[in-house]
């Protein structure tokens, strides 16, 4: 139960559903509520914290729509999403609504969601409606659904005007003089007769922290210490938004005219652990030559994302497997070896062996543009394939016949038997030009297996080893 000081006494501002069963309602003096329900938790109301939290949720909702605004009329705050042209990505309007509810539920919020043609209608249905919002249903809603102040609601009630539908029946010219212009404005906004601006919540600016001095530093330990402090500053701002760092950029400006050294570290999952991020920075700083006479260090969280926090039940023993240790390992490997050195393989439906696989950095999101595992080749492929085929000297008895003997690595191999040739050819219009190869899987007299091919110019190459 939340209370607020009003005048010289404390008043209940908001209460849970269960509390209303005990007769507690907003506006009641706190002492009376405490007498009715002693076991409840009473907390002072903090509207600023509420607004901050709502803004965090607005950032979360950016994944459903590029334009997310806050509706702040009369302390009944809510989020407004302009989903025009976005719903097909989430299985239509009902699908979008379901996903928004699910997403907020994961964060511990119970959300009322409504989709309608105007902001006014959506607000009314979300707060007071039940099902589909046709114009007729909108008219049956109570006048409170018009986003008007409580005083105005009370005045309308004095005239026994209880539903929205009763208002258009009155002469429109008399409404502003009797109840003020706000009532007609809200009515028009609900039924789409006048425009309503949606002010989007600004997307979060990149967080940065800077350190500068007159006396330049050149010790590695000092640089690490400064980084530690900058990281604490950056993390405190990022954490306040409920986000974690995905990519962190560091600029080292030196006094000499050299260009500033800058590098970045990436994380696979948004993180806010200073120890882990600092560990990654250390790995990177070990590999980078730190310039002397540094006078300015700038740290910027260039990419951030909401933290994935899921509350666990007290007796919930069926936890999902924790793969955070592997993710942290991948972060460390990527920080030290580079993005292109930690990869996942993606098979492509290409006939040319070196083109039938693509290696993507593990930090990149999995793209489903092309089907994974698309390789349709059933023939045996060697486990070791040279990036560039190695030219070898091969003897064969008949021209264009199978190999009989070949030299590789200062050694002669005698072929005991080989398979029928597998021809791989591509068109001249492809990037690599025309490829014409006859591949042979050969077994030497000792039993070792190799993958040789003869190209269009009748030259032989060793392309792989069946290790």
């Amino acid at each position, binding site marked *: 139960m939340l209370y607020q000081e009003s005048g010289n006494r404390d008043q209940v501002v908001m209460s849970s559903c269960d509390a209303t069963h005990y007769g507690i309602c907003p506006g009641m003096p706190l002492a009376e509520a405490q007498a009715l329900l002693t076991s409840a938790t009473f907390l002072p109301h903090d509207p600023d914290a509420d607004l901050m939290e709502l803004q965090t949720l607005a950032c979360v909702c950016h994944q459903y729509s590029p334009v997310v605004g806050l509706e702040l009329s009369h302390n009944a705050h809510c989020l407004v999403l302009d989903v025009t042209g976005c719903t097909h990505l989430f299985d239509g309007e009902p699908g979008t609504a379901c996903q928004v509810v699910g997403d907020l539920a994961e964060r511990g919020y119970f959300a009322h969601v409504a989709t309608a043609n105007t902001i006014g209608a959506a607000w009314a249905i979300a707060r007071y409606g039940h099902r589909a919002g046709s114009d007729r249903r909108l008219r049956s809603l109570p006048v409170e659904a018009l986003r008007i102040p409580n005083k105005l609601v009370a005045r309308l009630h004095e005239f026994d005007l209880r539903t929205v539908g009763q208002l258009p029946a009155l002469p429109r010219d008399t409404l502003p003089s009797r109840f003020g212009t706000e009532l007609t404005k809200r009515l028009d906004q609900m039924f789409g007769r006048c425009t309503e601006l949606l002010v989007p919540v600004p997307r979060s600016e990149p967080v940065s922290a800077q350190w500068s001095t007159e006396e330049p530093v050149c010790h590695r330990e000092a640089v690490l210490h400064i980084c530690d402090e900058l990281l604490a500053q950056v993390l405190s701002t990022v954490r306040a938004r409920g986000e974690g760092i995905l990519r962190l950029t560091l600029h080292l400006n030196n006094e000499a005219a050299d260009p500033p050294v800058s590098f970045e570290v990436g994380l696979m999952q948004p993180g806010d652990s200073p120890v882990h991020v600092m560990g990654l920075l250390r790995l990177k700083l070990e590999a980078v030559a730190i310039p002397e006479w540094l006078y300015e260090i700038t740290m910027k969280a260039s990419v951030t994302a909401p933290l994935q926090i899921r509350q666990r039940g007290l007796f919930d023993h069926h936890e999902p497997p924790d793969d*955070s240790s592997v993710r942290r390992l991948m972060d460390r490997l990527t920080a030290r070896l580079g993005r292109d050195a930690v990869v996942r393989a993606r098979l492509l439906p290409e006939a040319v062996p070196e083109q039938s696989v693509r*290696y993507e950095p593990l930090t990149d999101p999995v793209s489903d543009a092309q089907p994974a595992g698309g390789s349709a080749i059933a023939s045996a*492929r*060697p486990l070791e394939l040279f990036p560039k085929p190695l030219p070898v000297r091969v003897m064969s008895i008949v021209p264009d016949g199978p190999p009989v003997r070949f030299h590789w690595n200062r050694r002669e191999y005698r072929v005991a038997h080989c398979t029928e040739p597998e021809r791989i050819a591509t068109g001249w219009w492809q990037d690599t030009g025309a490829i014409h190869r006859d591949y042979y899987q050969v077994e030497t007299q000792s*039993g*070792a*297996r190799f993958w040789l091919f003869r190209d269009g110019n009748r030259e032989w190459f060793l392309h792989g080893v069946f290790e």
Partner: protein
Amino acid sequence: MFPATFSSDHRSRTVQKLRARLSRFQRGLRLETRARRTVSTGIATLDDMLPDQGLPRSTLSEWIAAERGSGVAMLALRAGGQAQREGPLIVVDSERTFYAPAFRAAGVRIDETILVRPESRNEALWAVEQSLRCSGVGAVLCRVDRLRTQEFRRLQLAAEAGTAIGILIRPAAARRQPGWADVRLLVTPVPSGSQSFFRRMEVRCIYAKGGFTDRSIQLDVSDETGVVCLAAAVSDSATALRTAWA
């Protein structure tokens, strides 16, 4: 004379007693190690040859190729694929020659495989050490040519700290070097005869901690299906295999 006979009798009895105690200790030790989780190599006959019925977790195993093209990587990857049930397989490949489209035939799931491609040998060893130390990793596989004793020991300590099985693919020269691996296997290619629809290789266990060594088996690997089975020792198994796989 009597004391001499007594003493020889006594000695033989003491030796027998000690032998029995030693075998009891060894059995106890074996049971203890078996209680630790092991990972199958993916080949039942090869598992039978190893004292723990597979490769124990948190240890290193060396797979030594007698020559190029012996098929050692295929057997090693098969073991790595079995470990993928517990976590991802990390392949450290500084030469950038491992060819992912062939992984599936060796029983490795590509979506559970992470390839690490460092530029230098030192970085490769660092990556292997870090990966072995990590607790959620299933297996770490790396081809290492030269390995100093200190480096080997570092890798073994890293493996002990983590839960993964470490698989090192080594060249023939590594056979003469001492190592810190719990299992050392030598893979030698064997001519498959006139037929070429399977390949044959001999796997010799040259060292296994707490077990009999210098045992060997011959394996046949089908070219089409990738099925591995024990080679028939009596006669040329080509005809039998052809009927079996037809």
